[in-house]
């Protein structure tokens, strides 16, 4: 009799496990397919110049030009990661100290008032590049050097320098290979670090660099195809070196006509490249990108025009995941009180505050904790509650001492 009960118990356990597995796989499927339903939250730009030495002035000017454009169209410095491998503005060979030009008419000083370089000099290497993209940093790396994107971010990744067939050269001493880049993008996708990604590469044989990509939501354009070189646009006789590359020059020519409110589409950008003028074929890859390029405005990546929603309460950042992995949780106790505060909210994959993860094992404690939290949220903020709690410790102490003496 007891043996039968034990057997029944075992069966029910197994049944429960199977049900659990089904449920988990269901939620996994839900979470992976939910990328279409995630809301676009912000735009990020990662602009990388990988070459050093004075004669690679044009790569620096390329990156700084893109930086200026992206800032002009609305992305703030805190969402731009600018990586410059060498210092051209204050180089000893620069005839115009603290000035970087991308045209021989010297109309624009790219190194103007507020240029924030996040990674400079020898910090620009493959390791740091991959750390930035995947978000796997040491503890003490400051926030300004991190790519703090979340699952609704659109990221522009611009790389320029010397490259070749399936590689990009960093600092004249190491290289980033196309499968490295594909791997990094795959990691980013796994960790929900972007919604859409645009990779723009301006090097020789640029399009080979993104040949190995296979993550959805990625759009890539390179300045030349396999076997072709990318050329510089013109030489500045005053500065003494070439000051801009052709691909970037024509990209900028496209953007200089725009302002923050224009909605020129990506397809118009991509079709504006004339192979005769570029002296190479700009090749783009859109098989991983679901949307039609005619419908996507360039400010989707290059600018930052977003709908803002006014809220009175303090902003509670959505992605407070420290370790970045997708936490597949069974929605046990939904803390309902947070509902009205969270305006930018997903319908499917709730990012449950990770605070509940440790208490989930202890149901009773979890319930108690939730009641406490819901009571706390009736206050304006947890901080004032803690302040009151701290303040009330003193009279409590005095009363207890008086009672016990």
């Amino acid at each position, binding site marked *: 009799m007891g043996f039968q009960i034990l057997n029944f118990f075992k069966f029910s356990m197994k049944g429960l496990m199977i049900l659990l597995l089904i449920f988990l796989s269901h939620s996994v499927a839900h979470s992976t397919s939910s990328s279409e339903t995630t809301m676009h939250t912000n735009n990020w730009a990662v602009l990388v110049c990988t070459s050093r030495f004075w004669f690679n002035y044009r790569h620096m000017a390329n990156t700084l030009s893109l930086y200026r454009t992206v800032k002009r169209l609305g992305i703030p410095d805190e969402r731009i990661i600018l990586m410059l491998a060498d210092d051209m503005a204050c180089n000893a060979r620069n005839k115009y100290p603290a000035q970087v030009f991308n045209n021989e008419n010297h109309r624009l000083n790219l190194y103007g008032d507020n240029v924030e370089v996040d990674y400079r000099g020898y910090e620009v290497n493959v390791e740091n590049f991959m750390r930035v993209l995947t978000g796997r940093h040491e503890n003490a790396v400051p926030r300004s050097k991190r790519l703090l994107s979340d699952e609704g971010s659109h990221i522009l990744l611009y790389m320029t320098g010397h490259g070749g067939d399936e590689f990009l050269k960093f600092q004249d001493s190491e290289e980033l290979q196309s499968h490295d880049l594909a791997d990094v993008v795959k990691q980013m996708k796994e960790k929900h670090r972007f919604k859409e990604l645009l990779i723009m590469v301006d090097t020789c044989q640029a399009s080979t660099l993104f040949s190995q990509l296979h993550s959805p939501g990625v759009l890539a354009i390179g300045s030349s195809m396999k076997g072709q070189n990318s050329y510089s646009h013109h030489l500045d006789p005053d500065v003494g070196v070439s000051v801009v590359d052709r691909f970037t020059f024509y990209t900028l020519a496209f953007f200089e006509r725009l302002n923050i409110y224009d909605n020129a589409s990506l397809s118009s950008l991509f079709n504006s490249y004339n192979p005769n003028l570029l002296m190479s074929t700009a090749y783009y890859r859109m098989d991983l990108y679901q949307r039609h390029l005619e419908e996507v405005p360039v400010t989707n990546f290059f600018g930052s025009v977003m709908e803002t929603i006014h809220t009175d309460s303090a902003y509670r950042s959505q992605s407070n995941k420290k370790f970045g992995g997708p936490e597949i949780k069974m929605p046990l106790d939904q803390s309902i009180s947070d509902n009205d505060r969270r305006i930018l909210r997903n319908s499917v994959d709730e990012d449950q505050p990770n605070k509940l993860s440790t208490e989930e094992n202890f149901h009773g404690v979890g319930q108690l904790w939730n009641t406490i939290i819901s009571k706390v949220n009736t206050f304006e903020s*947890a*901080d004032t509650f803690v302040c009151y709690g*701290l303040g009330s410790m003193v009279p409590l102490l005095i009363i207890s*001492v008086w009672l016990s003496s």
Partner: protein
Amino acid sequence: MSTKTETPVKKKNQKKIQCFWSWVIGSVILRLIIIYFPKNLNLSSRPEVSTPLTSIRRLAEGYWLKQSSMSPYAGSMYHGSPLLLTLLGPLTVKRIEGQPDHLLCSLVFVIADVVTAMLICAAGKKLQAAYSSSLQSIGLHHLSEDSDILPSGDFAALLYLWNPFTIVACVGLSTSAIENLMVVVTLYGACARLAPLAAFGWVMATHLSLYPAILIIPVILLFGYGPDAPPRKLFRQRTNLEVDDSASGDRSCLEDELVNEKRMLNVFSWRPVVLFLFWALLWSSYVLVLCGIYVQQHSGLQEMFKSTYGFILTIQDLSPNIGVFWYFFAEVFDFFRSFFLIVFHGNILLMILPLALRLNHRPCFLAFVYIVLSSMLKSYPSVGDSALYLGLLGLFAYELKDMQFSFFLFSGYVGVSLLSPVMHNLWIWRGTGNANFYFATAIGYACLQVLYLFSLISGPLLVLILLLSLFSLLLFLN
């Protein structure tokens, strides 16, 4: 007890008290004067004063992070308690026109110092009362009356307030002032047998910095036995002598004396201890709930414990301070790192039990020795920690007046506190020295503290042996 012999003693006490308040006010004024010096004389950036655990700048950074809706422990800057953040955080931001920065924080630390001194004074009074009553109970009436025992509580309070280390720690805006306050609250609560107060102090002190947790043993002993008393052997000797003096040889008389002796002996009473533990549980759950609410938006209590206790135990930050661990862990291989962490922390833990066995009849002194031990061997020591035990020395000044090497220790402390900033300057600012210069002063300081500890609890011969062994060790290392 005749009134004639009492009044001169009382007069002496009263005379001391008059000067006492003026000295206290004088120390407060001195602190305020130094605070008004430009930028606090840069004391808050000295490594001897501010460690990663006690620095006010890190607290301000943690507060800013919290205000920007991030976890205050992000980026490994702040490693203290969230409650301190609630208390001092808003004060670091408030700026009053024309006054020095962080004025309000300095005022909080000055108040903490003064309250600590008052509590030391009160604890000293309780200790003295217990001591004199125990002396009277074994018949040494004359000792308790006509000797000019200075009120050790007042003396200790003034010593604490006027100690240059305390002043520097207060003006340098180190949060060790608040930690010291909590430790002294524990001691006072235990001496006065106020279970809620002692439990509150112990819980807060452990919460702020991990090491006062070892004070639970002397506190339990204090609750069980009562404040310091001479050893039981002395009791037995005294009663035996009295029995012999009576010279009656009566059996029943002897038995009566034995019964009396048992009553006089300090019996360990469990009830106050259980009360203390109950209050400790209550206060610790209260504190944990408050902290949990404070950090629940970000990553919860786990991250808080990892950043505070985990940081203290794993010594992640190796910036130089007046301790010896930073130098050692900068050169240890990763493979052996956990081993050496266990060894160094075990150094404190292994000394707890023998000391408790040796000094169990003097729990207040045991607490003092534990404080010396933890200030010496903690992961990030600072002068604020030594300020506490140098101040508490005054409580036991009467018993320790025969301490060996007192002049040597005093000049050692003066020497180290003068040399250490010089070596730091040579190393960091001028670049003409290297880390060994600064580490030499740190090692000298550690040896000094070891010598101090040993001269507290052992006889002169043992101290001599220790000195010889220390010298030989130094020679061997060099």
